[in-house]
């Protein structure tokens, strides 16, 4: 609308001199309409907010964010930070937030790994492998996620035996319908040497990689960087551990009363949610990866073959870097989907943001408007952050490529 300016209009030149009346000035008119439209939108927003506040107070429904400082008084089954009933609603919110981040984080990593494997499997020359991958993709991505979640949670994990009849591995790992219990490492004095050794190893690996690349550029001789790096990363901390006499104790879970006590606990709700989210999203990622690889022109493969690269090198050095350019943007939306889908947690009692905050806290305080607004803001922030991060990465990849 604003592009049609009076000054550039050829018809305006031919008209007799003298200003047109104000209401015929297209620029002014355009401005007026835009201001009116903006005022309309803002006005509507203000009206909705005021109307809500007025009606909440008329019905005597509490509003504001004062509740965040009050004592929560309810328990949460799983928490990454210290939480007890005496803590505040704000703390409960953080517990839910972290649990959501945990499940999304693990889900994204697993979905990506599985998705890449699936995408590559689908392109395999081996008929069996390709068909298996295709069948997986078609079945998993065409079933509703909620049903798959129920299958994992109610159909599979619910069928595990009770704590007293746990499936036991090495007397250290116990699997039952309360979750997976495993030994927990307890650090003892002198442990600091091990992370230190790891840092030293990391620095050494970086230096080594640079040296190897420079040597390859100069002489063309390859160096087994990966295996040497791995040896460094494992060997140095191991050496440090031996030198300090393994300052690490394992706390084993013990059946005491109703449940296992001590050790690390992985609740079945978390497992079901992570498995359902990652297997489901991996099916989509597999297709994206396949499309990305097929999108790299065949000439590139032929050129790589002509250079005498092995199939693995071809994939790693030629095809995947170029395919990533095609893969990253749709991959971003899959990450966003996975994060948002994690709110299905509420259907199976995993204490995520929706269950804890938009569930229990909402019910106990009754402040639906504030709590739903905060919950939406959190998911929006997550999505925008993932998007931002992936866009930055995408730009880097694109630059390197061209």
């Amino acid at each position, binding site marked *: 609308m604003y592009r049609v300016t009076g000054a550039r209009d050829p018809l305006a030149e031919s008209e007799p001199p003298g200003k047109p009346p104000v209401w015929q000035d297209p620029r002014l008119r355009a401005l007026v309409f835009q201001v009116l439209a903006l005022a309309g939108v803002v006005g509507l927003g203000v009206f909705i907010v005021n109307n809500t506040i007025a009606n909440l107070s008329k019905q005597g*429904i509490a509003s504001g964010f004062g509740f965040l400082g009050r004592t929560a008084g309810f328990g949460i*089954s799983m928490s990454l930070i210290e939480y007890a009933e005496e803590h505040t609603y704000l703390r409960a919110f953080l517990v839910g937030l972290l649990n959501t981040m945990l499940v999304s984080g693990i889900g994204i990593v697993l979905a990506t790994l599985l998705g890449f494997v699936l995408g590559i499997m689908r392109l395999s020359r081996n008929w069996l492998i390709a068909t298996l991958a295709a069948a997986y993709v078609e079945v998993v991505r065409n079933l509703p996620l909620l049903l798959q979640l129920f299958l994992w949670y109610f159909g599979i994990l619910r069928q595990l035996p009770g704590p007293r009849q746990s499936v036991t591995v090495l007397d250290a790992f116990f699997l039952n319908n309360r979750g997976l219990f495993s030994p927990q490492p307890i650090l003892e004095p002198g442990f600091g040497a091990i992370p230190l050794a790891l840092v030293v190893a990391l620095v050494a690996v970086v230096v080594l990689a640079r040296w190897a690349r420079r040597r390859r550029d100069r002489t063309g001789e390859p160096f087994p960087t990966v295996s040497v790096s791995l040896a460094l990363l494992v060997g140095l901390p191991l050496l440090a551990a031996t030198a300090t006499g393994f300052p690490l104790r394992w706390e084993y879970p013990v059946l*005491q009363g109703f449940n296992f006590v001590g050790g690390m606990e992985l609740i079945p709700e978390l497992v079901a949610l992570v498995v359902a989210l990652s297997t489901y999203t991996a099916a989509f990622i597999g297709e994206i990866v396949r499309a990305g690889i097929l999108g790299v022109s065949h000439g590139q493969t032929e050129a790589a073959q002509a250079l005498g690269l092995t199939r693995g090198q071809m994939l790693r050095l030629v095809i995947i870097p170029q395919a990533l350019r095609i893969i990253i943007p749709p991959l971003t939306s899959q990450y966003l989907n996975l994060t948002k889908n994690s*709110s299905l947690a509420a259907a199976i*009692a995993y204490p995520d943001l929706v269950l804890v905050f938009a569930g229990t806290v909402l019910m106990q305080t009754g402040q639906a408007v504030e709590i739903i607004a905060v919950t*939406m803001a959190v998911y929006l922030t997550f999505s925008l952050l993932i998007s931002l991060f992936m866009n930055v990465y995408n730009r880097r990849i694109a630059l390197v490529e061209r």
Partner: protein
Amino acid sequence: MRQLIRTLGILTALCVTVVAAADAGTLDDVKKKGFVRCGVSQGLPGFSNPDAKGDWTGIDVDVCRAVAAAIFGEPGKVKYLPLSAKERFTALQSGEVDVLSRNTTWTLVRDTALGLNFTGVTYYDGQGFMVPKKLNVRSAKQLNGASVCVNIGTTTELNLADYFRANRMTYKPVVYEKADEVVGAYDAGRCDVYTTDRSGLAAQRLKMKNPDDHVVLPEIISKEPLGPVVRHGDDQWFDLVKWVLYAMLEAEEYGVNSENVDQMKAGSKDPVVKRLLGLEGDMGKNLGVGNEWAYNIVKKVGNYAEIYERNVGPRTPLKLERGANALWKNGGLQYPMPVR
């Protein structure tokens, strides 16, 4: 996401329709649309539960039917909306239901900050624990370290936390949105303990694979007065729902029931009965309904004793004694205000 969308929908309704809901008299609204919209549970035997034919039955349902009988003389003019514990208050606040009759505990926060009014107590209850018999637990004090299945957004969830805190015991809450999911998880062994109101334990036990394999522990850890709820800001509607319950209790106290009500109406000399049945005074008119209101309630739904015995009493599968729910004259807590 599903929950989020549902809550959002209700919230939008809240923002847009609250004015209309609070300003217009709910009673006029109800009369105009020709039925009462009643929020009930998603299936709790004895309280609100659809029977084999799909008709809702239960003590909470009978309260809704009594309200409809008082207004229309016709207890069938009710439309039921099954609500989870989590959804119930938002549905009432936003005007989706006219009255919430859903085994809901009367608490200060709900009565004030949530913008609601409790109209009375249909059933005096208390929270209890259920455990499998094979665990050999005899007291709630032995529950240290147990996993406990509980319904989200209930007073139960908070009482549970209070009880374990007060007794310096630890527990692991496993929190589900639907009552059926809670029972299912407990029955499948996800938890050692199932906790809810004792009436709820009696009702939900019927849904378990082997109801006799479970035992209710003797401790009652809380007061749970369950009653119908309406919105703030509509005194006329509040009064009506409140007095519908009193009318049923008053009818029991003065011996009026669905079988003898016609006889009583024709022949009773008792002025209390005459006032209750609309032969003297303007009781119904004061409430904004016909003078036959209480007659219709008793005739078509029954007095309190009848609805109790029919739905939750000793001869039903729930087998709940009157206990605290007996009339004040019989040593219980039910005390109707005088209809005069």
